[in-house]
């Protein structure tokens, strides 16, 4: 596989994996929780590095996922004390966690294979050389394996538990009255979000992961009224962002993850315009026939 193809594939898997699970964040009006989780995983990552003294994937994934769940739980606990509004609680928790993470990175930069730039932009361009070596055998780029695995996990999760996710996102009260453990599904979803964020983190960085979480789903939301179609479209849009980002970055001579986000913004903008036009036309039609 050529290095370019590897990078493209990594970008596509990152965007699609995040976009798919992130669609539910958009539907649950919890997009900023996705933003918070993607910031808060940083200290978990750094601690996992420090503790395992290496770039071992599994502790990294676990550490960061735990951090993500902790963020969701802390935020709820804090706003549950009723001393702080819910949106502020979110802001307080994730900014603190991210600040701690950045401090750890800057203090232990030499022991931890992360630096400030990587945290923000990711280093997707280095993917072809980031090899997974087990027992002396080189299995190829590690991020591809991780992202591929997480992508499959997301697809599996959503396929198996489609109806639970649907009803818990649409009408949590009905779900609870029917005996469905809505809280459990909420945390499972947040866990999958955290997992996806961590997997994409080293490729696209903290803040641009947010774009990949929200933009595909939000764009798809504007284009269709069916949940299943929306999820499928989010995959397509994620891929478009990835491809556009890759080729745009070489044209602009700029960061790939940044360009992916800008492409996402453009795609979203187009969908917004299209949607607005459609609504306008529908209104005019209704007025005339009404």
């Amino acid at each position, binding site marked *: 596989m050529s290095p370019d193809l590897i990078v493209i594939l990594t970008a596509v898997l990152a965007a699609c994996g995040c976009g798919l699970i992130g669609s539910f964040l958009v539907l649950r009006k919890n997009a900023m929780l996705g933003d918070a989780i993607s910031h808060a995983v940083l200290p978990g990552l750094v601690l996992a590095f420090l503790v395992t003294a290496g770039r071992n994937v599994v502790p990294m994934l676990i550490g960061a996922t735990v951090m993500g769940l902790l963020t969701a739980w802390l935020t709820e606990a804090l706003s549950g004390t009723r001393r702080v509004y819910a949106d502020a609680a979110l802001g*307080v928790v994730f900014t603190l966690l991210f600040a701690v993470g950045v401090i750890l990175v800057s203090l232990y930069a030499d022991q931890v294979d992360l630096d400030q730039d990587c945290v923000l932009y990711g280093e997707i361009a280095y993917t072809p050389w980031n090899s997974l070596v087990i027992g002396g055998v080189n299995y190829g780029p590690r991020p591809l394996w991780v992202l591929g695995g997480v992508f499959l996990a997301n697809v599996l999760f959503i396929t198996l538990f489609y109806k639970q996710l649907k009803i818990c996102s649409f009408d949590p009260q009905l779900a609870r009255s029917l005996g469905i453990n809505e809280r459990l599904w909420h945390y499972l979803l947040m866990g999958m979000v955290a997992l996806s964020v961590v997997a994409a983190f080293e490729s696209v960085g903290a*803040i641009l992961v947010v774009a990949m979480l929200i933009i595909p789903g939000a764009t798809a939301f504007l284009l269709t009224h069916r949940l299943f179609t929306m999820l499928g479209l989010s995959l397509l849009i994620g891929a478009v962002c990835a491809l556009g980002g890759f080729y745009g970055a070489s044209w602009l001579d700029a960061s790939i993850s940044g360009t992916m986000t800008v492409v996402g913004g453009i795609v979203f903008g187009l969908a917004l315009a299209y949607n607005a036009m459609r609504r306008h036309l529908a209104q005019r039609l209704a007025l005339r026939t009404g």
Partner: protein
Amino acid sequence: MDFWDLTLRFFALGDVNVRNVVAGSMLLGCSAGCLSTFVYLQRQSLIGDALAHAALPGVGLAFLVAGSRELGFLLAGAALTAWLAALVVNLIVRTSAIKLDAALGIVLSVFFGAGVVILTHIQKSGAGNQAGLDRFLFGQAAAISGRDVRLLLVVTGLLLLAVAAGFSRFKILSFDRGFAQTLGVPVGRWQFLLTTMVVAAVVIGLQAVGVVLMAAMMITPAASARQWTDRLWLMTLLASLFGMIAGLIGAYVSFLAPRLPTGPWIVVVVSLIFGVSVLLAPRRGLLSRMVGFIRQRRATMQDHILKALYRAGMASGVWDRGYDRVGMATAFGFLPGDLRPALGRLRRRGYLELVNGAYRLSAEGREEGARVLRLHRLWEVYLSRYLELPADHVHRDAHEMEHILTPEMEARLEELLERPEFDPHAQKIPYPERREPA
């Protein structure tokens, strides 16, 4: 130079550099804290996050267009793109079914992504003196110069003046927009002004805190200040103060280790202030609530003892019967361990007398025991008359309310119920002797 030398040098403020850094950081903290109050109350906390991230492309563009690293240009560019971001968020929410949270996330990440593109482009194009732009990511208070301070001073001064002048309007805007509109207040214009001021506060802070963490300065000072007071002017003042403290300490850290980014340290400090506020603030603080619970439990235990002794006295007619701790426990169903501290306190308060190792009610204790019993039975009467609850349902409720009813409520109950003689279980209600009819 060792740690203490550095610390002394810093706080002596002798060095002009130190003074600049301190001044700049504190000004940022002040303006951000001040504006954060209104943002918090309008439940728009996460907008600060979006605006801050959206400032990044503006910084880059200003550099490209103006070709200079002059702070004034950079901040102007930052303000422009941040303001644009606010407009776009509004646009998205108004023209589609996308909700505010997703709109914020999209604008935040797209603008930031554009900023990253511009920054990395500048980096690669080799415009060597761009290295300074990086400092807007995580903040570099050490880079604040004297000229920067003058600019910050002017802007902060204007902001504070504007807040003071328009205070009553901003207050009503934050608490009850709808009401403000009915009063004829041009809500749209004032909100426009407030948003502009928030953008300015965000942009001022970028040098010290950086784009990524500026959100914290627009949220945490206000959330902390809220714990200490219900009054808006005081909350605004406290939030500014907390912001300034965080700025100061952040500058201190930057001074000790100039290569560390300042932003995270400022955030850690302001979060600590938040933690302390949530725990220790009087009334609202969690600690204060815990203390309140403990006091309440103690008072309840003491009430139960007095009531039990009083009932025994009422039933037997014997008032000087004393009980030792174990005897009391057995007779009335208490745990001996629970009794020990309560008995000591009751004695200290003068409600119990200790005679020959046995406790009995003093005259005051008799009155107090009667009061608790009276409250219990009055409440039972109230429940059975006004809620029409049957007699066997009222006891549990009264058991709790007897500790909560104030003397004022007691008087009103007595009046409302016309001084009933008996409770729903046909038990006599004890009234103080001096109020018995002659």
